[in-house]
């Protein structure tokens, strides 16, 4: 089990981002939405830059642009002005307002400001959703999940005017646009009608367009969110978010069963996901997906010897690390350290649940880690692989080992938004990536330069 983690006062090269960033990304997954940060100008700009470098898409995040006098007298007037200006320029259907450490600390009451706005402002008024995201509390994942919960709490109802198919809710957490496109495909193949919240598949991985879109098309329609209370069930990926999640709210308010499963990464977690869909739809797993699973197993067999016993360090968001660790365990890679900047207090338990029967010995699992801590532990662990986002690159370089780039952010490669992690297809891509990384390493380290595997 876990040994004592390093315990430093300072943080060096954090393995987490701040709460409002997660909220902004979640809001980007709603149709016609503009994310809005109630804080000083810098937060919005920094996050835009950070997010653009991964997705290569425009992401306009508005800001109250608070200055010194607002910090003293309160930011209400600027919030209202900002909302009016965003409405004028973008004509959004929804503005997703996230607070920042500045406005949380000066005690701005956003709910009250929004009530005043509602009474004072005439004319066009988008739907407002607000979420408290002080950056001194939690990571970007708390921001993400709390924003989703707030959207559900504010918008979901039980009246469904749509008469199409059997609706299911999927709350996938922070996964890639490619993952979401694939989730839609799978659910539709089961003749289910998915409402995926949030849906960044188009908004953060858009097409070349004829005209510049002020707000990128796509995202979960507000009407679909309004109907989430009518779904057959909700499927929520991950276990490390707070109890008051979007799925939990739907269960509590509308009695929609909330099926919480780990992120479907790898065969076993994907099987659970497909089984639930089969159960919900009453249909067998479609042949197309069975075949993909079959090919995946076939490739596992073909590739197993190249990776067996390789030691991996996995880091990033807790739920993604749980999923990836389970996947690595099932292909014969030994996870030796699982690290996250998050602090759910459930991390080790969930990893044990996902891998217990596959691993003779549990990896070290540590919450609240930064890359200094990870690097320090790595020295004695002698890993063969790093699995995580691109911020692990300096460590991979130092250790001269491959970095398998997954998750967010990918700032040093093309196509971060198109990495597929979930389901049989995602496992196939990850498996090929990992096997090939190991083969490439062996090949480039070899003086012979052999030309067969």
């Amino acid at each position, binding site marked *: 089990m876990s040994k004592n983690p390093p315990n430093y*006062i*300072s*943080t*060096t*090269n*954090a393995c*987490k*981002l*701040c709460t409002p960033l997660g909220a902004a990304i979640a809001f980007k997954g709603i149709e016609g939405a503009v994310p*809005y940060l109630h804080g*000083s*100008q*810098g*937060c919005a*700009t*920094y*996050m835009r*830059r*950070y997010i*653009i*470098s991964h997705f*290569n*898409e*425009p992401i*306009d995040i*508005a*800001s*109250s*642009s*608070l*200055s*010194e006098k607002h*910090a003293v007298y309160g930011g209400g007037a*600027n*919030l209202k*002005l*900002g*909302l*009016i*200006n*965003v409405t004028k*320029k*973008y004509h959004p259907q929804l503005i997703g307002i996230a607070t*920042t*450490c*500045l406005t949380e*600390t000066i005690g701005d009451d956003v709910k009250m400001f929004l009530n005043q706005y509602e009474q004072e402002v005439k004319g066009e008024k988008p739907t407002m959703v607000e979420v408290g995201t*002080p*950056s*001194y*509390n939690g*990571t970007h994942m708390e921001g993400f999940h709390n924003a989703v919960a707030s959207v559900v709490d504010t918008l979901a109802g039980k009246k469904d005017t749509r008469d199409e198919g059997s609706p299911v809710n999927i709350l996938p957490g922070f996964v890639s646009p490619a993952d979401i496109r694939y989730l839609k495909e799978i659910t539709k193949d089961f003749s289910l009608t998915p409402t995926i919240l949030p849906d960044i598949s188009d908004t953060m991985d*858009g097409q*070349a367009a*004829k005209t*510049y*879109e*002020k707000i990128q098309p796509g995202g979960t329609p507000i009407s679909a969110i309004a109907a989430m209370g009518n779904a057959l069930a909700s499927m929520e990926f991950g276990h490390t978010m707070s109890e008051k999640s979007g799925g939990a709210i739907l269960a509590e308010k509308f009695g929609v069963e909330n099926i919480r499963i780990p992120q479907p990464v790898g065969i076993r977690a994907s099987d659970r996901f497909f089984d639930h869909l089969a159960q919900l739809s009453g249909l067998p797993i479609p042949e197309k997906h069975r075949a993909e699973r079959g090919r995946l197993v076939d490739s596992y067999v073909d590739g197993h010897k190249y990776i067996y016993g390789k030691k991996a360090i996995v880091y990033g968001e807790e739920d993604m690390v749980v999923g990836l660790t389970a996947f690595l365990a099932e292909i014969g890679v030994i996870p030796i350290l699982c690290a996250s900047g998050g602090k759910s207090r459930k991390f080790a338990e969930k990893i044990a649940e996902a891998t217990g029967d596959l691993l003779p010995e549990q990896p070290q699992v540590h919450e609240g880690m930064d890359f200094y801590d990870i690097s320090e532990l790595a020295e004695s662990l002698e890993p063969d692989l790093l699995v995580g986002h691109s*911020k692990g690159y*300096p460590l991979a370089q130092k250790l001269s080992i491959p970095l398998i780039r997954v998750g967010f952010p990918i700032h040093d490669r093309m196509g971060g938004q198109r990495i597929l992690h979930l389901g049989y297809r995602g496992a196939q891509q990850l498996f090929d990536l990992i096997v090939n990384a190991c083969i490439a390493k062996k090949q480039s380290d070899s003086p012979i330069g052999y030309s067969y595997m």
Partner: protein
Amino acid sequence: MELLKEREEQIHRTGEQPFTLTCNKDSLAGAVSQRACVFCGSRVVLYPIADALHLVHGPIGCAVYTWDIRGALSSGPELHRLSFSTDLQEIDVIFGGEKKLTNALFELIERHSPKAAFVYSTCIVGIIGDDLEAVCRNVEKEVNIPVIPVKSEGFKGNKRAGYTAACNAMARLIGTGDTTGISPYSINILGDFNLAGEIWMIREYFERIGVEVVANITGDGRIADIQRAHGAALNVVQCSGSTMDLAKMMEDEYGVPSMRVSYFGVEDMAQALYDVAGHFNNPEIMAKTQALVKEELQELLPKLEFYKKALNGKKAAIYVGGSFKAFSLVKAFRLLGMDVVMVGSQTGTEQEYRELAEITDPGTIIVDDTNPLELTSFLEEKNVDIFVGGVKERPIAYKLGVGFCDHNHERKEALAGFVGMLNFAKEVYSSVMSPVWRFTYQKAEKK
């Protein structure tokens, strides 16, 4: 496109009316400014000082979004590429973060043995009232290196205020080092950040003409150099927005005169060398400068011909952090035979915008502190072929089917100096002439 009323006076069109332009004001709420904040201004200026500890006192965001953010290279230590934070938590916000900051400083200084420590305050520190001066003073007593607070609370002004805070922080270092042995023909290079190794090229030019460089402020910067920078005979200031305050302070306090230069584009690069040589009024230095410029131009100009021919008549738009760089870019595009149809910046001054209006062609849009939707409408209106900006501007260009040249702090291509002009031409060419545009709707429809 209809402008927000408050934004109208920050946009000017050359020749269409007498020059007026409002600038250096707080960004408008909800306008989606491309600007960052005071902290950003300080952080980017001090960032390249490679042997200093840069500790961000605040919640994690401010540190993590500035981790390894600049392509500012170091010839030695690389401490500047790490991201240090006190990662304030709720409990620190309630009870104050001074103790955590003190302990973090001791921990990091012991671990890394930096030559100095900069402690950046963030929004929240300004609110909870941590006394950074006192913490730094107390730690400094025990660690034997300068520990310097940078007053960069994000909300206390705009990015320009951050430049001032950075200059104030560096001012504390200047005057504390030994200046013996410094040549009378010596300069400090201010406002070059050694992106893609540019300051090494510039230093080499100065060395070739017989001028000693005392301190790089701040590209490939070192604390010890900055401490003896007051011994230099002249401050040569680029990117005047960011380090002019420091030059002024050194002039007042130590009598070091300063001049503004730019190393971008052939004309400005040559002018920078001539100005420095002229300042020293030494025939040998002037002769060497003439020889250097001649040699470099003989090498460069024939190579540029190919690009000039290909790019002649193409239209360019520019949006950069400080407007001083924009002047050089306007000239560089002219040299390539291209038309600049829009030019703007996040933090330009009225004087700079006025001068831009004087040198640009009629109809050129001049804009302060703009935003994605305005930029979009300008690029569309002017039917631009290439947009020069930073990461946040890139997707705007690409979605409009417009080429892009990164001229911001993340870039990996050296664009300064004579060889930089060639690289710039290649950069512009490789985007404008790429075959990929034939697949985008905008260009396909134009044909």
